[in-house]
């Protein structure tokens, strides 16, 4: 028997009138993993989460959570999940502590235990100072943290985070990432949706790319990048006389055709990830006396992945996000 999956969805379909929100989503998340559901606006991320959390009934397909069917036994599923929706779901006029205790009561935890858990969670989510303040005056980051704390009250087996950093400033984003990483270390299965490539890249064990209600690709961030061709090295040299020598070196080290740019002094070609190609190239060029002006290694970003997979950039759709979409660029200058 295969290891039990935390989430197992087959052929999920959902339409709203004419709009096809899900066109057959398959998804498998093993226990304890952190999966990223990546897609642009309107891809079907929220709809997928809503089906898995029993909020929406699929038109077709099945979904199981810890082996329990979400349509047949929604109540049992609800006992095992935590949901932090796309819009921070907090009661604005209650304090942070009251909010957590309120949800604890709806989970039917004994009052004492609810209090204790609330105390623990406030501490852990850095909300102790604000614990007895009404949520209305909280910043976006604080609300999000409270929101997640409320989802963790009953120690869910699977936690759903729908765009947990949308609308946060860069510092809160970073804090949120650290927090999500900690959750994973605790062994909670996390399914996170995001429109941010760098977020999926940093957090997720595996990324599931979704577009137009369909899973179009999945794998680790590295696998996705390798699938569209691995890293590229770009070298600029000082003097055009050295063109032949430089080309010679690069042709040896690259694992594909080397391009020469218009100025004749800039070359680029694919290299294998993690093969110490770059130091080799630098040394070899030095040995044959080529003066290097600039050297870049560019890992393909998930933007590139997306462009390759869908034929359009990730933010081509309408975009109300103000977030970062680029992935890191490694730059080495000698």
């Amino acid at each position, binding site marked *: 028997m295969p290891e039990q999956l935390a989430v197992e969805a087959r052929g999920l379909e959902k339409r709203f009138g004419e709009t096809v929100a899900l066109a057959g989503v398959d998804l498998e998340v093993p226990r304890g993993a952190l999966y990223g559901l990546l897609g642009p606006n309107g891809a079907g991320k929220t709809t997928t989460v809503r089906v898995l959390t029993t909020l929406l009934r699929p038109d077709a397909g099945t979904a199981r959570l810890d082996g329990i069917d979400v349509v047949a036994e929604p109540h049992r599923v*609800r006992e095992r999940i935590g949901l932090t929706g796309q819009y921070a*779901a907090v009661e604005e006029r209650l304090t942070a502590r009251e909010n957590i205790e309120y949800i604890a009561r709806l989970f039917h935890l004994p009052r004492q235990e609810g209090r204790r858990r609330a105390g623990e969670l406030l501490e852990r989510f850095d909300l102790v100072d604000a614990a007895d303040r009404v949520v209305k005056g909280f910043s976006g980051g604080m609300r999000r943290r409270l929101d997640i704390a409320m989802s963790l009250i009953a120690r869910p087996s699977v936690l759903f985070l729908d765009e947990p950093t949308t609308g946060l400033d860069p510092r809160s984003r970073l804090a949120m990432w650290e927090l999500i990483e900690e959750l994973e270390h605790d062994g909670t299965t996390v399914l996170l949706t995001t429109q941010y490539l760098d977020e999926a890249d940093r957090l997720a064990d595996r990324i599931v790319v979704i577009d137009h209600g369909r899973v179009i690709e999945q794998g680790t961030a590295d696998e996705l990048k390798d699938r569209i061709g691995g890293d590229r090295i770009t070298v600029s040299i000082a003097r055009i006389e050295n063109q032949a020598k430089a080309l010679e070196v690069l042709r040896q080290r690259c694992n594909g055709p080397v391009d020469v740019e218009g100025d004749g002094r800039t070359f680029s070609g694919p290299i294998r990830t993690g093969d110490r190609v770059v130091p080799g190239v630098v040394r070899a060029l030095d040995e044959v006396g080529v003066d290097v002006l600039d050297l870049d290694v560019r890992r393909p970003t998930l933007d590139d992945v997306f462009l390759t997979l869908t034929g359009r950039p990730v933010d081509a759709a309408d975009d109300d996000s103000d977030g970062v979409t680029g992935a890191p660029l490694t730059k080495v200058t000698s």
Partner: protein
Amino acid sequence: MTDLSMVVQDSWTEAGRHLRIIPRNIEVLIFATIQPIMFIVLFSYVFGGAITAPGFTNYDQFLMPGIFAQSLVFGSAFTGVGLAEDLSKGLVDRLRSLPMSRSAVLIGRTVSDLLRNIFTFTIMVVIAFAIGFRLEGSFAQATLATFVLLLFSYSLSWVQALIGLSVKSVEAANSAGFIWMFPLTFVSSAFVPPETMPGWLEAIANANPFTIVTNASRALYNGMPVGNDVWYSIGWSLALIAVFAGLATRKFGRSTSA
């Protein structure tokens, strides 16, 4: 936990959430209380001289039960607005993902709104007494009259719950919740006897359940014979609850935040 004890416990948790917020949002309560007081004073002094209500000691004795009924009906609008707020804040998604009773969210909301309405009603009665309204029937009759009014208001809370869950914004819930209450309460016996209206309007007014509820409580407060109006009133209220609690609960089970 049995289903029933879960419904009761969760409803109480939900009602507790709303009740706890009332004092933190005291302006809402203050204005909700000022409005009926204003109506009492305005109608009594502005129309009191011009309108005679045959069979009654004075216009106040005729008018006050009508204003009580109208204010309680208006008070039901809080239910729809509150639910629309929960929807827009994403709370409905959260609540629906919890292993709690589904109907508890609506029961807790309607019950807490009923308690709030009882509070404003009490203030209103005190003011009415201050300007000269008197109970001319027995205490038991007055209690029954109050029960009839509160039950009708509670039944309309369920209508408002369905409206609040059906519209797309809090503003829309506010307008959609209020707009029909003007014809409902004015094309009735609340302020003037329907006999003074044009024939077609009089027919509508007499068929209006709000007229029946007003007549029932008015007769009881004034110690007059009430006929079957009490039974009709209770029947209307229970029928509204049965239909709209069912529809609203169903709707809630499918609602997702915007």
